[in-house]
């Protein structure tokens, strides 16, 4: 699988990541190489093999529905780029 300039632009958009236009071709080459490596998987016969998503085949643990965390909004927001009155600020979304 070989990716070209427009594939990279599309993927970068899906990942919401701005790329330098000058680097897109280099990414296309690197990602094509990586997908070339990944293509080795095609040769493996995986008929009837269960997909494995967790190494210990564990079921997700449940807990009782209780509040266990303190409200630490102040501390958590202290590291935010921009806050006002306890709210995170972003550029205007709705005109």
């Amino acid at each position, binding site marked *: 699988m070989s990716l070209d300039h427009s594939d990279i632009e599309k993927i970068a958009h899906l990942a919401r990541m701005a790329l330098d236009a000058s680097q897109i071709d280099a990414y296309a080459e690197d990602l094509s*190489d990586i997908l070339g490596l990944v293509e080795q998987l095609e040769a493996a016969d*995986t008929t009837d093999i269960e997909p494995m998503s967790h190494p*210990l085949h564990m079921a997700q643990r449940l807990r009782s529905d209780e509040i266990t965390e303190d409200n630490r909004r102040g501390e958590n927001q202290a*590291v935010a*780029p921009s806050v006002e009155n306890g709210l995170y600020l*972003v*550029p205007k979304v709705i005109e």
Partner: protein
Amino acid sequence: MHDQSIVELGAALRAGEFSSVELTRHFMQRVERLDGDLNALITTTPEQALVEAGSADQAIKKGQAGALTGIPIVQKDIFCTRGVKTSCGSKMLDNFVSPYDATVVERLRQAGVVCLGKANMDEFAMGSSNETSFYGPVRNPWDRERVPGGSSGGSAAAVAARLAVAATGTDTGGSIRQPAALCGITGLKPTYGRVSRFGMIAFASSLDQAGPMTRSAEDAALLLQAMAGFDPRDSTCANETVPDYSSTLRDSLEGLKIGLPREYFGEGLDPAVAASIQAAIHLYERLGARVIDISLPNAGLAVPTYYVVAPAECSSNLSRFDGVRFGYRCEEPKDLEDLYKRSRGEGFGAEVKRRIMIGTYALSAGYYDAYYLKAQQTRHLISDDFKQAFEQVDVIMGPTTPTTAFGLGEKMDDPVTMYLNDIYTIAANLAGLPGISLPAEPVNGLPVGLQIIGNYFTEAKILNVAHRFQQETEWHELTPDLNKQS
């Protein structure tokens, strides 16, 4: 003082030969003198370290000291440390001061360790050479023109250069074992779920695991003892009892069955490294172990499987870095999409971007089955290989890496060549098994790592197997000559 083990230093501290404050100052001076060149640490925390050392001295005076009380260590900068910058090696988190502690940090502090600072690492733990760090590469203390390995390269270099007695690391595809091998130290990746991932910045959540990086298996046992155990704050943390890792270190290896996977000794393995590993295995035979040829037929699928699973999970995990709640934000965003795109585009380095894009692509509509589902199936095949192997053998041995440390810059232009450096370590992560790397006989003055992979939750066994080797050899005691100009 810096050449002693945790066991020796702990005994000296408790006997009052010197204080933890004196020991801590000694290591701080070494960091000051030597780290400018090595670049093993991103942040040092001298004031905090001296406060912790002072508390340790109080505990020692009151007779309340444990094995780790007053021992200076460094934390990989992937672990959140309350009130201290936690960068994960990235520009994205260069301004991030964590509001909370990781469970690993909390537990080690409760055990009385002194934290000297935060260790350099590949950006978001993505790399095998520590060259993807925003803070620049770490140099290998054995040869400063070579890489220390990665991603826990700063942790490995700090322990090898005796800038700290021990360090924490994390291992997603070899990131503890590979740098341990290249720097000549002992590094243990526990079973998935053995150590809590709470507060450990996530890269690939089904693979990530924290572990100790030390000078010996004996020290690793002490550090793991404090790190391991159930944590309700990590839903994947295993609720399994933690055995006393130190008590079985000296057990006899008589009758131990060692499996040698033929796939780990084939093409690509440097013949000199192979000879060093074979010599180590002969020593085990003299200690009463039996060597059995085994096969892991799907070993060749490990690297390609990993480069679907890990990027897929990373693209999902790293979506949280959006310039809104914490971390880097671009200047003057014109709208929300511009804020996301430029914050991420400017905040992430090239390797992180490559992996996010591979993951995004593999998970995108129309490709999911061909890539992600297929890789989850091949992951199962790889895991089953080990299951079958452990029906025949107690442990699996082989090299940790195909070569000794390579040159700085040597593999940075070719991601795929870099990835192949983890060819022997990745499978244990995919299967979730514990593995350790310990120093075997060096090749041309450069460290070589012997890898021992165990069955699930058999950390005590692989520490025992590693310790017995270290009782018979001195490879783990060799120290780099840091005064030598490179």
